[in-house]
């Protein structure tokens, strides 16, 4: 089966972001960018499916600015076969991304679309679900295990109370959670091979999709800072402070 994987270029998870003084957003200039960690897990899962003989072709796609090509090349180096960049500004929102992915899915006809459950920049956790709805497909979100079962998938999901297993018919959308797999390190030979793989660039107009953002950001501020704390020297001191100062224990 063909698998479509969607990836996003985001601020690296190790970066402590700074809010711009003018309140318009977060400082991203000269900041390290990487593939969204959850999307990396999605690429890894697709590659494992291919290695197991369950997937025949992996097409990786990103909706974003020209620099997203680096992210796509990384996905190709992990093991995807072909890449597509939908050339758009950085301010794309989940509904628009889902519409673009839906158009690509209608063209490419994969049996499965897999992507991260949320991007660590906007923390929306919407795109996969929206995509599934637009296609009229079932979804299996927050996946920690994906098994192919007759005509469909059996997916174990991480939910608030523990684990839940659902069965979905194919084609389906899967969104990945942290423990689905541990992505492999990209090797230099694979990075070199990836340079030769196809990377097509398309415009949103070519897909007939309107990527204009719906939500307007009025301002971005830092959350209120906590008061500085203090070290205590002993358990006695801690208990006394919690009881008498913080008053959180009897």
């Amino acid at each position, binding site marked *: 089966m063909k698998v479509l994987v969607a990836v996003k270029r985001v601020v690296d*998870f190790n970066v402590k*972001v700074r*809010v711009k003084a003018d309140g318009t957003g*977060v400082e991203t200039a000269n900041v390290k960018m990487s593939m969204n960690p*959850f999307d990396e897990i999605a690429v890894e899962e697709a590659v494992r499916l291919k290695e197991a003989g369950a997937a025949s072709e992996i097409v990786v796609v990103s909706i974003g600015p020209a620099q997203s090509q680096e992210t796509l090349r990384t996905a190709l180096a992990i093991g995807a076969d072909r890449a597509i960049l939908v050339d758009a500004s950085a301010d794309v929102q*989940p*509904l628009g991304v*889902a519409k673009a992915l839906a158009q690509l899915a209608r063209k490419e006809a994969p049996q499965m679309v897999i992507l991260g459950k*949320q991007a*660590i*920049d*906007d*923390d*929306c*956790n*919407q795109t996969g*679900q*929206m995509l599934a*709805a*637009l296609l009229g497909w*079932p*979804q*299996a*979100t*927050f996946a*920690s295990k994906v098994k192919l079962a007759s005509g469909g998938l*059996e997916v174990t*999901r*991480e*939910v*608030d*109370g*523990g*684990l*839940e*297993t*659902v*069965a979905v018919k194919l084609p389906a959308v899967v969104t990945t959670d*942290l423990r689905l797999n541990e992505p492999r390190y990209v090797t230099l030979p694979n990075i070199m091979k990836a340079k030769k793989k196809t990377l097509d660039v398309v415009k949103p107009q070519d897909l007939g999709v309107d990527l204009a953002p*719906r*939500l*307007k*950001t*009025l*301002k*971005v*501020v830092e*959350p209120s800072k*906590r008061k500085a*704390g203090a*070290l*205590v*020297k*002993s*358990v006695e001191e*801690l*208990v006394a402070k919690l009881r008498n100062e*913080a008053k*959180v*224990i009897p």
Partner: protein
Amino acid sequence: MTTLVVAEHDNATLKASTLNTVAAAAKIGQPVHVLVAGHACAPAAQAAGKIQGVDKVRVVDAPPYAHPLAENLAALVVSMANAYSHIMAPATTFGKNFLPRVAALLDVAQVSDIVGVESPDTFVRPIYAGNALATVQSGDRIKVITVRTTAFEAAVADGGSAPVEAAEAGTDAGVSCFVKQELTKSARPELTAARIIVSGGRGMGSGENFKLLEALADKLGAAVGASRAAVDSGFVPNDYQVGQTGKVVAPELYIAVGISGAIQHLAGMKDSKVIVAINKDAEAPIFQVADYGLVADLFQVVPELTAKLNG
């Protein structure tokens, strides 16, 4: 104009998250309806009718909703959507799973995980693991919103007397089905509602060692949480995880034991009223958010702390 809150419940009882979501809905300043969709869910619907601030409960009791399958639930909500200007659900795995489908089918944006309501079209939400707060405005005709429950004090569960009306059920989309669930059973309070949380990280070293934290939690009447590292290492099940993509908690007291304090963990607990950190590494970032920090060997001080507490 009316707000619809989609209730989270297990057919027998309402989840606390529903009360926080009703509280957020109240801030919009218009009538609130609660949808209870389930199977054999009359008790949950009755409970919803008693919440203060709820004007009507709409109950859909049919087999397709025995489990909140996203495909079925979203289709049902969409069938009712035109009567509402706002549709809200808790930002729990329940709400996060199905609500975006509703938004896409209605061709509107979703505002995820709000922590504040500025006006009926303007909301505050955390981004970048809570390191920034964005104020966003929606011009869409229906606002679809998930609510961070820790940001809104629960509506009062008793004293209301809203009418409970049956509404028309949809059909099973037939593309997905529930197979099974493995839920952690515990006599301890639920993490997201607990007043005190004792949380363990990689420093605990093993699942067996979490017994030390359980003893402390028992003394305090606390819930037990964990960092991603502890879950990844198999010390505790995934539902213990506190963090950017785990549970977000805001208890009165959060005791972080053997937790280094990675950005992603802080995202899940930095709104706690009082934070205590116990870690043998004085450089651990957790000490930068802790109100009280104890640089010590947790295997010595945790039992000592348990012993020195009343109760």
